[in-house]
């Protein structure tokens, strides 16, 4: 309940945040909505020496259309995604899933960038961005900007391709108006992380399927997509849901049950997305 001592630096610009990261490197953590980091700190499972608070950088809170791409500022809160008319029209699955994160308090504080950068395999939004084929714009004061495809971003449990001096600036996903989609979140309480979650987006005869909590990182169910591309039925393709995945056992699921759930939920997601 009482975190270990830390220094607190509230910055007023992205440049100042990047400068602080450049200065402190691994010793610093960015604080946005605080709904992943602060609980860890209170339990003393995380003890950063410096907290760089970017929570008030309003210029990183936006949803914009740029041609076929929807660009979302990293500090856009879940609640703003949930209620964005732009998203509702162009990427409705993202608005829907943002509305499934945690509870109203969490959604009013937590940000999409914070959720993505935390790289929790049990988080919903990374799997959706994977299913959409999205990417991330990141920036460092020294090396400038680079864009990382979502498929290359999540590198390990709570680990991402972000360098210690880099900050996630923008999330980019294709506009998919009219695409079929489904999000199957299976949990025991409404506010819990998914035991298993499945995001499916179907358009132009192909489907992207992202998996929540089926391993140490958010995953693409590539075996499912391959089976579909080879003309397999939804039911057959769903049997490949956990191909290559290494799900963990916990209090809510054995490996066997989690694998089974993934198959059931992928089938349901594909049926809904193609329906």
């Amino acid at each position, binding site marked *: 309940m009482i975190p270990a001592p830390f220094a607190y630096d509230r910055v007023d610009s992205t440049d100042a945040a990047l400068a602080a990261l450049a200065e402190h490197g691994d010793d610093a953590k960015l604080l946005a909505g605080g709904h992943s980091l602060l609980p860890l700190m209170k339990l003393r499972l995380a003890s950063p020496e410096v907290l760089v608070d970017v929570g008030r950088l309003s210029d990183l809170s936006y949803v914009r259309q740029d041609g076929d791409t929807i660009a979302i500022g990293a500090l856009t809160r879940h609640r703003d995604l949930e209620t964005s008319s732009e998203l509702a029209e162009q990427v409705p699955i993202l608005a829907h899933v943002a509305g499934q994160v945690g509870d109203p308090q969490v959604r009013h504080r937590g940000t999409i960038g914070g959720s993505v950068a935390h790289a929790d395999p049990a988080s919903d939004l990374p799997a959706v961005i994977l299913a959409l084929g999205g990417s991330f714009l990141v920036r460092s004061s020294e090396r400038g900007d680079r864009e990382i495809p979502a498929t290359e971003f999540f590198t390990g449990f709570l680990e991402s391709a972000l360098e210690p001096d880099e900050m996630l600036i923008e999330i980019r996903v294709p506009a998919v108006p009219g695409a079929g989609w489904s999000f199957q979140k299976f949990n*025991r309480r409404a*506010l819990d992380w998914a*035991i298993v979650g499945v995001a499916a987006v179907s358009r132009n005869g192909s489907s992207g399927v992202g998996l929540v909590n089926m391993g140490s990182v958010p995953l693409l169910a590539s075996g499912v997509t391959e089976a579909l591309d080879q003309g397999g039925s939804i039911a057959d393709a769903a049997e490949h849901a956990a191909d290559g995945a290494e799900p963990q056992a916990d209090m809510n699921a054995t490996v066997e*049950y989690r694998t089974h759930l993934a198959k059931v939920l992928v089938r349901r997601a594909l049926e809904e997305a193609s329906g």
Partner: protein
Amino acid sequence: MTATEPRTNESPAVTGTRLLRKEDPVLLTGEGRYTDDLQIPGALHMAVVRSPFAHARITSIDTAEAEASPGVVAVYTGADLADLWADQMPSAWPVTDDMVNPPHFPVTQDKARYVGDAVAVVLAESNVAARDAVDLVDVDYDPLPAVVDLEAALTDEVVIHEDAGTNKSYTWDLEIDEAAVTKAFDEAAHTVTGKFVQQRLLPMPMEPRAVACVPEPFGGGVTLYSATQIPHILKVMTAVTLGMSEADIRVVAPAVGGGFGSKLEVYAEELLCTALAHKLKRPVRWLEERSENAQATIHGRGQIQEIDLAADADGKVTGVRVRLLADMGAYLQLITPGIPLLGSFLYCGVYDVPAFSFTCTGVFTTMTPTDAYRGAGRPEATYAIERGMDLLAREVGVDPAEIRRRNYITTDQFPYTAVTGLEYDSGNHESGAEIALDLAGYDDLRAEQEQRRSEGGTKHLGIGMASYFEMCGLAPSRVLASLNYSAGGWESATVRMMPTGKVQVVSGATPHGQGHETSWSMIVADKLGVSPDDVEVLHSDTNISPHGLDTYGSRSLPVGGVAVALACDQVLDKAKQIAAHQMEASADDLEFSGGVFSVRGSPDKEMPMAAVAFEAFTAHDLPDDVEPNLTAQVTYDPPNFSWPFGTHVCVVEVDEETGAVEVRDYVAVDDCGTQINPMIVEGQVHGGIVQGLAQALFEEAVYDADGNLSAGSLAEYLVPAAPDVPTMRLGQSVTPSPTNSLGVKGVGEAGTIGAAPTVINAVVDALSHLGVTEMRMPASPLHIWEAIQAARGGDGDGLTAEQTTDTAGADRDAPSDSVQADQGGAS
């Protein structure tokens, strides 16, 4: 000359109305003062160093670095504090003469016996400094094997308390007529056996524990503020444990944010703050962290139950046999050993059972001590008999509602002396069940179920019911004596009519969310003809209310509320004498209505209660033998328990593919007798149902094989929130209690008692055609899916112990729920 308006003769009764709670404006606007809100200048903050091992010898403790940490005033180990204790921590319920109650002190010295056992305390100038220093206390542990399986604990392979030489605390038998039980089973046409696991639960009140002890400026006494349900009992026990005079200890429970039994306790931190404040002559305070609450506040349930039912060819129960193994945890807390015994009387449920035997063995484990948790023994008992009745229905081949109808104690049998010797004063089970079943649309549901089963599909409809008695109003002191309980069961109330006509009530009951201030005001309003707004209820401070036995066991209204009513009657009697004197009439000719005395036959003569109060205060003109002031003090010892009863019905949809349960409908009829405030009653029933449903579907304090509490945070310990619970529909049944003058019975635990078996009966019913006959609580999607797999993969005869697996608790729960029918098969 009065400050209050008398209520008119036409005033309707206040009791029975949905008066908004007096307590709520303060609580809802954040003005409630909880223990940690108290501003106490100069207070030292205590933090506790806790064992990370379930079972370990403490080889050394180095406090030097912690002592040198900024702001730290002192660090104490168990050895440093040993001289402060006049006695070990209290366990007030020696259930047998040879019960093992091992040494238990606020800070352990030799060994840690559960994760969270206190090994040292830090005192510092701030809570932050204290918390930081906890990490600097260097304790060397020599880890020993954990004991987390109840049956393994009984083998004494690893003994937790070496001096005791055994992990067994006691075996307690309720042997009434063993020959009759044997005969019943010998002659039975049907027998069934159920083996059930009552998983450990975390009580999880909204407010964790908090303690602050302030030395008086002179005289050597202390004021102990604590988030407790039992300031009166705490005061006595603190005096005994510290060797202090009772006169030197004042206990105050400020606003308390829930307890559910977990604050019916004398805790190490209360004793530590008091002893250290007394020793150092400085206030000492402590606030529990949520993760500490999971480890160091008592847990509930923790039993393995075996129940055998014998029945004749029609399914009429002829005998019940119960064997319990009860998890004490590492030590005996205040009433740990008695909790399973409180349930012992209810294993025959609401049925007319002629033969019964019960035995319970309490066993130590290396887990957090268990103790009272909402219902305390009675939900467990009800679960066993109500699951058992469903098993019997299946065995006999009749509907679960029908098997119960054949066995209910009928209305004309009351008052009914049970085989246990207890007298059930009233009941109306068939009618209560009928109301609930009708409200749920039971017959239509069964038809829908049959239809859907014939059509196939992967979502299955299940209907479950349970009927129960709730043994409330703890308790007749003489009954407690027969159970070796070290206290009585009375309650105290003082009613004072002030010169202004306002009323002060001093109650020995100790509300922590129940709404006593509102309910007591309503009782007084009708008795004395005043507005409930003019009644002030004082409580929870042992200097203001010196006598009391506090709040637990659904006792406050049927004991404490009745005491208030009786005190009002005495005040009224005295007022009548004064009024008669003033109006020069005979007391026998006086009528009292709407707050006004009048003389029968003389309509012009009347005197409002407030005027009588003022006369009693001035004492200018009182009858010769009447003392000034209108005040009465009553201590009420109930002649019997109270016996609320009811029936719950639950309708679920179970998804065979995922194991998910959706509660489609929930209906409850809880007959708690006369309702003082139906809104408060409904709130209690709603909350109770949610807590029972939580045991059935969500919650478990899972331990791993090493004795670590895996479900130690609110991310893993699944307390359901509003979106996770169904809308509850309540049916009405009111059978006033003949045992007390208010006709009330108590309502705090009823929902919890009924809900768990109702929900599990529904889940099992949904899957019965797939061969599932038993379901381990909580009926999580995982447990359900595995039960279906086991039923499919097995011989179709349901689950066996080996087939049900439990992920994290696998090692502990070797005897997973299983059932076998002795005759005829269960399928």
